[in-house]
């Protein structure tokens, strides 16, 4: 991944969400994107050319656009119509984004469209985040990476973030099909958010 003086950037056409430019490189702000925040942590997460990514919870396509700058193709799943309109607009200008309007909790809705991928990125803020991630592991190639962005406050506002986190790690490990490789809290960029990185077996 491209870093200039420690600043994470990606190479692509700018102006997607008013991001800052360094020459022809787009600055990828860790305060705005959880995936960028994760890349600033020392977890060895890399987006490489030729990678195929399934992105769940694509929202307005800001992070998706950066992922698309690095990889071969991004399958971007989003269910809400308002963000989807923006995502379509982003996808029109980036020909390696495949926008899919479907419910990430029901992968059978798009199983006819999505090929096996190298990375599943789960950023859907739902109480059953872990179940959604595990259900989408059917798309993951053996050895592929699953990144779960755990919004602990969306899972349960009443419990301590650390308890929600260890619970999620345990459920991922017990779910079968993936091994928990690493994890990181996204402070100081995002509070009460953790990333859990798994490898498909």
């Amino acid at each position: 991944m491209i870093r200039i003086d420690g600043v994470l950037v990606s190479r692509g056409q700018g102006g997607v969400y008013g991001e800052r430019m360094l020459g022809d490189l787009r600055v990828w702000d860790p305060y705005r994107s959880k995936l960028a925040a994760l890349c600033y942590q020392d977890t060895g997460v890399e987006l490489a050319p030729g990678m195929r990514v399934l992105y769940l919870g694509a929202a307005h396509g800001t992070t998706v656009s950066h992922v698309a700058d690095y990889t071969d193709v991004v399958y971007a799943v989003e269910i809400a119509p308002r963000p989807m309109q923006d995502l379509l607009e982003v996808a029109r200008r980036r020909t390696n984004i495949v926008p899919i309007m479907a419910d990430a909790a029901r992968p059978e809705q798009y199983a006819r469209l999505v090929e096996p991928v190298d990375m599943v990125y789960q950023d859907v803020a739902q109480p059953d985040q872990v179940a959604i991630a595990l259900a989408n592991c059917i798309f993951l190639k053996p050895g592929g990476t699953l990144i779960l962005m755990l919004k602990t406050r969306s899972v349960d506002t009443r419990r301590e973030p650390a308890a929600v986190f260890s619970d999620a790690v345990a459920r991922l490990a017990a779910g079968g099909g993936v091994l928990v490789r690493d994890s990181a809290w996204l402070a100081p960029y995002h509070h009460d958010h953790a990333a859990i990185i798994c490898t498909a077996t």
Partner: protein
Amino acid sequence: MQSYWFGDVVDGTCHPCGGDAAAIAERVLSLDAGTDPSALPDWQVAVSCGACRDRMDYIRRLRDVCFLLAERTIQEKYSGRDVELLQMTRTLDELDTVINLLTGLAAEWYQTRHPAFSRKFRRIQARTLVRTMSRHSGGALGRVTGDIGRLSETRTALAREVSERADEVMPNCSALVGGLVAARLILHAGGLEPLARLPGSAIQVLGARAALFSHLSARSTPCPKHGIIFQHRRVHNAPLQVRGRVARVLAAKLAIAARLDLYRCAAAPEFIERAQARIDAAGAVP
């Protein structure tokens, strides 16, 4: 046989479905769901049977289909009768906030120009106040107060439209609590269908988010008795000792009314009559 968006694969032989993006989109919708990980689409298979030329062509065609599917789904979601009502209600509530804020600011500004002016001990309606201020002020203050007046007119017109639309979209809920409160209920629920799925107990505290979460997290505060439905006169006019009961009964009847609105799409006079009587009975002090 395995079906993919580009065609069917029977015993290792691929049969492309052909047709343009619209035809393929139609086909994708008719395919039954499947989650067999060994049965995901493979672009090389698609190329081998001539559904596309190469990987770039595969992605291009797939994108065309996905765009069509997404645009169609967006249109479907926006075609609901309640979609515009949500936006109207949101704007109406925000207009209230803006008008109140501006009126307060303008009054303070006006007072610096007219030191003898005070609202104390004088029951001046906000609207009259704005009119007086705009008559006696020139320059920017005059324009601001004039704009507040026009915003108030817009607000009145919008409130009438919201009420009419709510009567049309949700006749039963509107009959129980009035169009404006009914519209705010579906605004907080996120639509008529989500509202109809809620149990009465959730409808009762809809909009009392802060109070509810403080109760749930610490249990040091009592559970809220009412959220938005407090705005309905039978709840806020009820004597304190029966107010919770009125709210409970009203919310339970609203849950039924919302389901009638969603599935029957018409007023049910006999239900409304019985529900009104039940709510009135709950408000009677023993």
